[in-house]
């Protein structure tokens, strides 16, 4: 899993990696053309129930790709967290979809199919592509007038299993079965509309459909890897980093990045609420340990120049949180060395009275007590970097974001 997605740019160079995309594009274009998608009349026939090719090809592709993706994820070959899932902007998506549906019946193509139409000499496809370019141009010119709508109903990375509160396996097998039922119906409808006997289907079709259902059943049975499974896959390498103190950054390094405008640092305070209320670093986000895993999804959306730092009173809870987030493939994640206790000792040591010290404390309890909910109003919550001469061993190595930041339409 460590090598997903393939580090193409490292292997082949910047432009070399683009060669891989060109090859994928060629395969894409070949399948589209051989499916008949270069022919607008054939595409439009879908909407008169005469030839439901568009539906059949699209849904076959979706169920095949979906089953293979989630099977690979079940087997630990692919990391679903690092897969580009188009974020859900519900209403712009629906309105845009309706406009495109109208464009489909008027123009006879969609953008991908018009490209292969163009390539095979279809004049209507060429004119359609010019229309697409004009539409895109008009969008660029007008989007600022409805920017609020364009950015509305943003639900981020939101998946069907989350919507239905079902497991990925259940959703995958349900979609496969539903699509197969719809294929049977589509064949009947075609025969009815064309007033012809139902076409004989190739002999391999039923076994292939059965095979796909079987693969989907495997996805259902194995399930998707849990956080624990994901941790086990990287435990050896990651434990070594923890032991070697390669990921525990000092407060000095923390402050350096806090003040670096090119870096976004997000302190994740994983302590209990009472501790957080007593004192926390300015800008710290409160994420109790039991909510860390749920937070991981959101953190994936932060820009590539983001550093996450888990914080607890000492290091125990912060290390737990680090493991959870590491297992969820969150990039650039570090632990604040010595936690809040070391921080207060460094930056508030002089101002803390003897009565405030807690003696005989347990691991990961706060070493100081505050009589009021000081929060981040305490001077030590955001110390000036000039206060102390900060000497530290730099440990942060910015990892380029592995997860793709855009899909095929970005």
């Amino acid at each position, binding site marked *: 899993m460590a090598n997903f997605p*393939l580090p193409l740019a490292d292997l082949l160079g910047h432009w070399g990696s683009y060669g891989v995309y060109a090859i994928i594009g060629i395969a894409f274009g070949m399948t589209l053309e051989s499916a*008949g998608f270069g022919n607008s009349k054939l595409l439009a026939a879908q909407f008169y129930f005469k030839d*439901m090719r568009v539906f059949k090809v699209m849904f076959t592709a979706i169920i095949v790709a979906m089953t293979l993706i989630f099977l690979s994820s079940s087997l630990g070959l692919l990391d679903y967290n690092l897969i*580009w899932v188009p974020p859900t902007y519900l209403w712009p998506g629906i309105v845009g979809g309706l406009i495109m549906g109208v464009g489909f019946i008027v123009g006879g193509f969609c953008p991908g199919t018009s490209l292969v139409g163009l390539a095979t000499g279809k004049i209507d496809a060429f*004119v359609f592509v010019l229309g697409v370019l004009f539409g895109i141009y008009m969008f*660029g010119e007008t989007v*600022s007038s409805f920017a609020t709508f364009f950015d509305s109903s943003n639900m981020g990375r939101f998946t069907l299993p989350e919507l239905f509160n079902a497991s990925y396996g259940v959703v995958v097998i349900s979609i496969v079965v539903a699509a197969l039922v719809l294929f049977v119906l589509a064949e009947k409808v075609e025969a009815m509309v064309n007033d012809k006997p139902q076409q004989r289907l190739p002999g391999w079709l039923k076994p292939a459909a059965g095979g796909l259902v079987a693969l989907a059943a495997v996805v259902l049975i194995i399930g998707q890897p849990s956080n624990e499974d994901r941790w086990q896959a990287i435990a050896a390498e990651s434990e070594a980093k923890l032991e070697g103190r390669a990921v525990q950054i000092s407060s000095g390094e923390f402050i350096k990045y806090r003040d670096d405008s090119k870096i976004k640092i997000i302190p994740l305070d994983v302590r209990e609420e009472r501790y957080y209320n007593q004192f926390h670093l300015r800008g710290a986000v409160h994420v109790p340990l039991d909510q860390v895993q749920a937070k991981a999804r959101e953190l994936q959306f932060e820009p590539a120049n983001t550093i996450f730092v888990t914080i607890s009173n000492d290091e125990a809870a912060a290390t737990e949180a680090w493991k959870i987030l590491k297992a969820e493939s969150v990039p650039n994640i570090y632990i604040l060395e010595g936690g809040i206790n070391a921080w207060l000792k460094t930056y508030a040591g002089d101002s803390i009275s003897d009565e405030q010290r807690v003696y005989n404390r347990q691991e990961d309890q706060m070493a100081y007590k505050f009589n009021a909910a000081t929060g981040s109003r305490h001077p030590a919550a955001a110390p000036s970097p000039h206060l102390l001469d900060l000497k530290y061993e730099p440990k942060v190595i910015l990892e380029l974001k592995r997860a793709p930041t*855009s899909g095929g339409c970005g």
Partner: protein
Amino acid sequence: MSQAVRAKPYLNPYLAGTLLGIVLFLAFFITGSGLGASGGLNRLLVYVQNEVNPQHIDQVAYLLKMAGGNSNPLDSWIVFLTVGTIFGGLISGILGRRMKFETNKGPQISNPTRWLMAFAGGALMGYGARLARGCTSGQALSGGAVLSVGSWAFMFAVFAGAYALAYFFRKAWN
């Protein structure tokens, strides 16, 4: 001999769909992102705009992201995917002996009418694809396979829009 030059029939749709599904899976497996088409066209357009009127690019936030300052809008994998798609269509068209300059339409409309419709439909497609942050390939196909809620809602909207107006355009296609 006449058999030899006749265009080969299109693939069985379920076979074509299976192949397309495997290509889509490989795209995800190798790169982590799916397929797309409108993104590449978008960047080609921005490239031309940037050559013609770079000042304009620097004034529109939406365009600035792709071509502001010294960034080259063609320096993106989506562009290569799109160029590859055109070449793939060409290769398949040659292999299938389906290369032919023609305009596909119903028998009741003229070529210029069809072209006008193609342009208007294309413009709606292009506009809608940017609004929906993706086209049938990038949103419906790729997002559908990785179970994005928005992609499924989008897909139903596309089919709904086309079916809703199909009756009014029946002469164009039948």
